[in-house]
């Protein structure tokens, strides 16, 4: 009896240790590549290997100013992200509201089609026709082309998520406003938009994050380094000798990554739970 208990205890301990070792190794696997991002930018002479900076220095960040395109590319990323966000939030909000509240003919079929489209017509699958379309429209090397393509791609998911959110808002607010004689547009502006703000903000942040990191579309549609966003430009950071300019890459990558992390933290802490967990059971 005692023996059995002892064996069980031992096996529990062994299992615990096994899991902690496994989790430790797993975490190390995920952490190892990331450590370079954290450390290399602060090293006076960064190498490929992860390690504490030999000579702590912020001189790598000065490299960013020395590259003729680097700062410009961060601005380009910002413009692409904000432009796409404006279009996606506006168009998705209108569509989602109408789909949630009004009798749009063929609504369920439309939603199902949107759902399919958003997963079937991916960037890689549609690379060829999208390149040709933008080529024919004369929008190669134009930010407008990239914004339009990205908006078209993100809209189905955005409509979906927003409609889901608006479905959770009780229509009674709008009903009472209407009883008091508000026009549909007044209801939208003064009732729906304020109540739906967390949903709209989530879609806005989500769009910015998607565009900020997107590589393939700007990569095939923008050739001029003056127009390229950070995601594309970072691949051109080589020294005259032809090897990667580690100082520039390290500092630039860190600067380029920070907004994404901040936006995720913001979205999760502020809106994450309310967005999907909220009113709807």
């Amino acid at each position, binding site marked *: 009896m005692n023996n059995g208990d002892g064996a069980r205890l031992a096996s529990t301990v062994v299992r615990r240790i096994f899991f902690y070792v496994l989790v430790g190794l797993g975490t190390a696997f995920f952490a190892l590549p990331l450590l370079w991002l954290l450390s290399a930018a602060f090293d006076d002479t960064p190498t*490929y290997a992860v390690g504490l900076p030999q000579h702590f220095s912020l001189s790598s960040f000065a490299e960013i100013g020395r590259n003729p395109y680097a700062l410009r590319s961060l601005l380009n990323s910002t413009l692409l992200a904000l432009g796409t966000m404006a279009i996606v939030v506006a168009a998705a909000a209108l569509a989602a509201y109408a789909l949630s509240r009004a009798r749009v003919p063929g609504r369920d079929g439309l939603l199902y089609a949107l759902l399919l489209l958003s*997963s079937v017509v*991916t960037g890689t699958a549609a690379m060829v026709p*999208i390149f040709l379309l933008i080529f024919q429209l004369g929008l190669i090397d134009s930010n407008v082309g990239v914004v339009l393509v990205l908006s078209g*791609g993100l809209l189905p998911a955005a409509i979906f998520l927003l409609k889901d959110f608006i479905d959770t808002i009780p229509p009674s607010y709008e009903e009472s406003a*209407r009883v008091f004689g508000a026009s549909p547009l007044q209801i939208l502006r003064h009732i729906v938009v304020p109540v739906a703000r967390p949903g709209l903000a989530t879609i806005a942040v989500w769009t910015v994050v998607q565009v900020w990191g997107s590589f393939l579309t700007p990569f095939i549609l923008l050739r001029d380094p003056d127009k390229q966003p950070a995601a594309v430009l970072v691949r051109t950071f080589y020294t005259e000798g032809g090897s990667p300019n580690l100082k520039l890459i390290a500092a630039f990558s860190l600067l380029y990554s920070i907004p994404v992390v901040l936006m995720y933290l913001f979205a999760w802490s502020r809106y994450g739970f309310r967005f999907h967990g909220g009113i709807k059971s």
Partner: protein
Amino acid sequence: MPPAETRQQAAIPAQPAVAGAPAVAAVPQSVGVGTSTPTDVAGLGRLRAVGFVAPALVLIGVFLVFPALWTLYIGVTNYRLTGVAARTPDVVGLDNYRRALSDPTFYRSLWITLLFVFGSAVIGQNGLGFVFAWGLRGARPWVRRLAEAFVLLAWILPASVVAFLWVALLERDGGTLNELLGRTPGVPWLVEYPLLSIVVFNIWRGTAFSMMLYSAALSAVPPSHLETARLAGSSAAQTLRDVVLPHIRRYALTNTLLITLWTFNDFSPYLLTAGGPNHRSETTPVYIYNTAIVGGQMGYSGAISLLVLLINLLLALVYLRAARTSRRLSGG
């Protein structure tokens, strides 16, 4: 209906995308509507409602639906980026499809894609995601938070950045991995093991989604069932098989379908190896890029794109079916 946490996570698609950001992840709460009856409380009226939907539909129509349909036409032409066929492409019938079917490089890309998807998504992300979810379940909060933070960071950072982090990790001269192994001269991992490199890279990149999904699914396993199994003296393997698996089977299926779809369409292997050396890590998306944008053979790559679209359609339909079935089964 999956727990709130899954839905919240699932709504943030893993694959940054041009075209479709996968809304499929949001299916469970959204398709098969019926829960909300449109009542037109704001008095929009049908005309204004259609007007509201129109701008979005026009954008989706021109930049998503039209390209997909146009692929049908492009695939039967000899469209090229330069030369005569750029100005006046001719319809060449099924020539492109015949060529694809007899092109060993194309077959090889399909095979490489299959290995890539199976190794990195179906086995790798699925398995590691579950191990993390299961292993961290009882861990101290700070351990759990720290481990999850690293897994999540790998997932949310921009693809261009993480790709370079892996180039630095795997670099022959002075890369972290070779330093750790004490190899000088080091192994040029991306050159000698290109396919293995992109598989491991993609496991690293995408495990977060599976981890979050499984940890939400596991939190729905009633603790009393686990306790009963423990008191009955069942081994960990037995508990997993008899108590946990029945609860998470449906999540496992939908998760596998989703990550398969995403990984199949993933372009980030290009950022590590550009398909090389000598096509050894050239997945189908990279093959399309190399033949279309680099090689200028739009007609031929259009034909191959159509194949990708059809496979995507198949996967998405199976996914939607599975998601609906699980919805019905769980009464949500």
